């Protein structure tokens, strides 16, 4: 096989693309359609709650176009990281959408659903067998981390996807997968060089993100060859340049030269990027070094209590002048009052001052007030919603009347935009796993179900 053409429908399933772009890719001989549907970018919420970051309608629209084209052209469609998190809930959400489209449009195919959510017992066994490794900056995995997890997913490499295709699936809906593995699976199966394939996959995973000036999300096509790949957008008004493609290795990576995959590391230091037309770029020269250990990254979330928030503004120039002291005095008053009312039950108050360091927090080089007003967001977090609410209602009262030396008498120093000012925000989640497992085999952590649709 001299070449393998493939298309990435869009950078994120549900963000949109033009149907024409996918049609053009099919005309040009695309042998598979791939689309990433997941990310940790929106924070721990999707994995914790099983919800997709896009609406069902948005995901359905983008999926329906891919599905009809894949079935008509008799080529595989691989969707990775279903439902944003790739958890079992995300996978179920995505499978239902695929089934619904198939029913409405009279499409038939064999579908594989590759589960990536792990039972706690599985993770515990790997930990006890010495099969876990911490990634910087985190400490080693502990049993307590596993106990506390609401959901844990493992990020699959190419092997579970290759197995599903090998077993006759035309449509593969995968749980959490590395963005690259869904594009690398088939060309690797065809025997193309890992260095070429992984670099291609890294460029394709974000759809048209690697073009020079992206106006809206869209599709991107690549043609994998023996020792290079070509990449180009499908919209006529988009173009790839050597710089735009090279730049994409920077995206969402800590290090643009050493890109870690489950089976090894792609080194792009010596990569060459040449324009082969006004809109297409040829990439060659990367190296891929297999790692001695095959590793699978974990993602996990735990709950960190319940939050009640308060939002308020301050305009008084004398409060603003001494804002740090005013907030310190408020902290002290809160501590005394809360001890008196709810005793020693643990709680935390996170105070963000917009207009000082609300956006950057600990990273802010200049944590001072320069404007004529600030916005304060108080976040009370404790082990129950009722307790957080009770504490927040004391905080709001104490904050409003927190005195300053300038004024003699009772002040109202905070402007609350809402009544009541307390807003119960529900559970607080956090990512707490930053670890890899060394699985018994590349497919051992993943379970695949097949169905005839």
């Amino acid at each position, binding site marked *: 096989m001299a070449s393998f053409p493939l298309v990435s429908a869009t950078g994120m399933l549900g963000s949109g693309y033009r149907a024409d772009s996918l049609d053009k890719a099919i005309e040009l001989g695309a042998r598979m359609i791939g689309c990433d549907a997941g990310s*940790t*970018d*929106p*924070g*721990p*919420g999707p994995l914790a709650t099983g919800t997709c970051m896009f609406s069902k309608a948005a995901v359905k629209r983008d999926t329906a176009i891919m599905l009809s084209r894949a079935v008509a052209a008799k080529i595989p469609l691989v969707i990775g990281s279903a439902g944003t998190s790739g958890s079992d809930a995300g996978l179920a959400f995505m499978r239902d959408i695929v089934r619904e489209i198939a029913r409405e449009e009279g499409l038939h195919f064999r579908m594989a659903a590759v589960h990536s959510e792990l039972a706690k017992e599985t993770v515990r066994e790997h930990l006890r067998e010495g099969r876990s490794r911490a*990634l*910087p*900056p*985190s400490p080693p995995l502990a049993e307590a981390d596993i106990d506390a997890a609401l959901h844990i997913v493992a990020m699959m490499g190419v092997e579970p996807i290759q197995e599903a295709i090998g077993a006759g699936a035309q449509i593969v809906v995968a749980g959490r997968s590395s963005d690259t593995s869904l594009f690398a699976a088939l060309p690797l199966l065809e025997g193309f060089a890992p260095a070429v394939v992984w670099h291609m996959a890294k460029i394709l995973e974000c759809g048209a993100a690697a073009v020079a000036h992206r106006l809206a999300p869209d599709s991107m096509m690549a043609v994998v060859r023996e020792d290079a790949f070509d990449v180009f957008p499908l919209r006529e008004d988009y173009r790839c340049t*050597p*710089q735009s493609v*090279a*730049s994409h*290795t*920077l*995206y*969402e*990576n*800590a*290090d*643009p*030269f050493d890109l870690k995959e489950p089976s090894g590391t792609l080194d792009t230091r010596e*990569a060459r*990027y040449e324009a082969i037309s006004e809109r297409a770029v040829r990439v060659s020269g990367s190296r891929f070094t297999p790692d001695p250990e095959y590793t699978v990254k974990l*993602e996990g979330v735990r709950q*960190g*209590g319940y*939050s009640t928030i308060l939002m308020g503004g301050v305009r008084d120039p004398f409060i603003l002048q001494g804002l740090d002291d005013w907030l310190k005095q408020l902290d002290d008053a809160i501590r005394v009052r809360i001890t008196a009312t709810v005793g020693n039950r643990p709680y*935390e108050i*996170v105070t*963000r001052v917009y207009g000082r360091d*609300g*956006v*950057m*927090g*600990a*990273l*802010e*080089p*200049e944590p001072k007030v320069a404007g004529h007003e600030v916005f304060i967001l108080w*976040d009370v*977090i404790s082990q129950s919603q009722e307790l957080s609410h009770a504490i927040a209602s004391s905080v709001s009262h104490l904050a409003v009347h927190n005195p300053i030396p300038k004024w003699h008498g009772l002040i109202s120093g905070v402007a609350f935009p809402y009544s009541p000012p307390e807003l119960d925000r529900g559970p*607080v*989640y*956090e*990512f*707490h796993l*930053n670890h890899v497992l060394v699985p018994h085999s590349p497919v051992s952590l993943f379970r695949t179900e097949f169905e005839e649709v």
Partner: protein
Amino acid sequence: MTAAATTIADLAVLVRSKNAGAFWLTIDVMFDNPEHYRRVRDSEVINRAAVARMFHREPADIIVVNHDAALAIKISFPRPQSSGSKFDSDVYGGQQYAPLLSLAIPD
């Protein structure tokens, strides 16, 4: 009075910050003019010690990479807290680059 010094904001076509996974933050300083890129790169104004000072981090935690083919300088370091956790205030990590913009580049 002398003319205002040339800054990163004057020379770069894009400066952005972003999560690199939930536990790392990464900042890209990108150019389209090779001379502007080389001027900033060779000035070494963006270095581990300076970045550590600016963001109150340890120099050992900072990665600075010059990417000649991309005409870009990349800075990465661990987030003070993971994305979306209770002490975080920027889930996407998208608004953490601003202090770099005013870095002066020598002529």
